[in-house]
């Protein structure tokens, strides 16, 4: 198994982005998380704007973990898994709350991974971990760059394992990526991270 030099208990939030081909990977990762995983996780997965209900429920069922769509100004709570709602951007405010926005789509996407990652990086600085998974467009690459610039940790899914590797490959082009990992290694990383908080 890989060695992880950046493991520490300083992290306060994990953001995950994904698009085409990421649903299975996200499901596997969430399913493998220990029940008492301490960090909040905010996810932006590209989704159909017209289908407002059901996605978070489907993820919850598949992973046995509650997945919630935050309301505007909702407090970011420990150990909770959040999913960006349909047709809104999910952003992070200073003071550990979410905010939602109906601004223009970014990279043809609303929710946009770039917006979640950039605002999270602004608020959480070096206490943030960004994970970018399989996907068919460039959304998330700029956000990963911001996470790196502000001292956060960047992880992408190993492109050869991705159904469509445009997303992680674009991020690798845009900025320094700390770890390029297969999904089982991402799970291993999160489990080791979990031990830091015991």
């Amino acid at each position, binding site marked *: 198994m890989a060695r992880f030099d950046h493991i520490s208990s300083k992290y306060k939030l994990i953001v995950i982005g994904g698009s085409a081909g990421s649903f299975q990977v996200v499901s596997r990762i969430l399913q493998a998380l220990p029940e008492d995983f301490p960090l909040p996780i905010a996810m932006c997965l590209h989704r159909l704007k*017209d289908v*407002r*209900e059901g996605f978070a429920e489907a993820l919850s069922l598949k992973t046995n973990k509650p997945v919630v*769509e*935050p*309301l*505007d*100004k*909702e407090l970011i709570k420990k150990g909770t898994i959040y999913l960006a*709602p349909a*047709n*809104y951007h999910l*952003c*992070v*405010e*200073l003071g550990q709350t979410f*905010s*939602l*926005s*109906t*601004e*223009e789509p*970014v*990279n043809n996407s609303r929710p946009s991974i*770039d*917006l979640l990652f*950039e*605002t999270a990086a*602004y*608020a959480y600085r070096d206490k943030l971990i960004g994970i970018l998974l399989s996907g068919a467009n460039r959304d998330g690459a*700029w956000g990963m760059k911001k996470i790196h610039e502000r001292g956060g940790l960047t992880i992408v899914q190993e492109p050869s394992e991705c159904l469509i590797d445009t997303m992680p490959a674009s991020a690798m082009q845009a900025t320094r990526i700390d770890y390029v990992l297969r999904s089982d290694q991402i799970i291993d990383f999160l489990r080791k991270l979990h031990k830091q908080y015991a």
Partner: protein
Amino acid sequence: MENIEKPEIEIAQLRRLIEMIKKRYDYDFSNYAMSSFRRRVQRFIELFRIESMEELIRKLELDKQFFKTFLSEITVNVTEMFRDPTFWVELRDEIIPSILMNKKEFRVWHAGCSSGEEVFSMAILLDEMGILDQVEIVATDIDYSILDKAQQATYNLRNMEEVNKKNYQRFMGKRTLEAYYKVEDGKAVMDKTLLRNVQFVEHNLVNGEKIGVFDLILCRNVMIYFNQTLQNEVLKLFHASLPRYGYLAIGSKESLIWCEYANKFIIVNNNEKIYKKIRD
């Protein structure tokens, strides 16, 4: 996302900008949600090729016209007709019939109406119910130029066809959306007679004066750009502008639960976030 990246905006710089605007123009952005406000400022700086926050503050202070442009760009004006079709179904089938049980004529306030898409949605809905002339609509926004745009009633054709039309179909209106507009020079021009009972008024929800009493207030996806302090103040204004049992609709992912006045309302439909005032 952007090609030329400017240095990152710091909170202290934003505070200076907000202070200057308040002093010079009497618009108060201090209780806007900082994350989106910062992003809007960043976008403005890039759009107008401004070198630094200092330059932005200087220019805005000197040039009133430039400030008007800033005001238009800083506010988010992305909206759709019949956004969340199930919301409009609920209005048509439940909320408005219940208002009509008590009165034949009533009043609606679109607070933060932007370019008017929701105003048109409402007018079409009322027209199809055959009650358009029984309803007085007031539509307000902070930005005078966007009200002008709303009254021109001219929209991007692609949005009309790809977004609005689909929403209307899911709303299951009586006609087709095309029945309400003509195509002119590649744009969709709405039937302006739909606006015959609509009054557009410039109005800022921040320190906003009460402008009347309304049976139904729509303020969807406007308060998401405010922090909780300001949301609370705006809710007080809405509370004062509703009779008992009047309705307030906010965006489907907004909530009032953390507002001081929340206990003066009950939730009528939690999916669509429609509230009813029950206490004075």
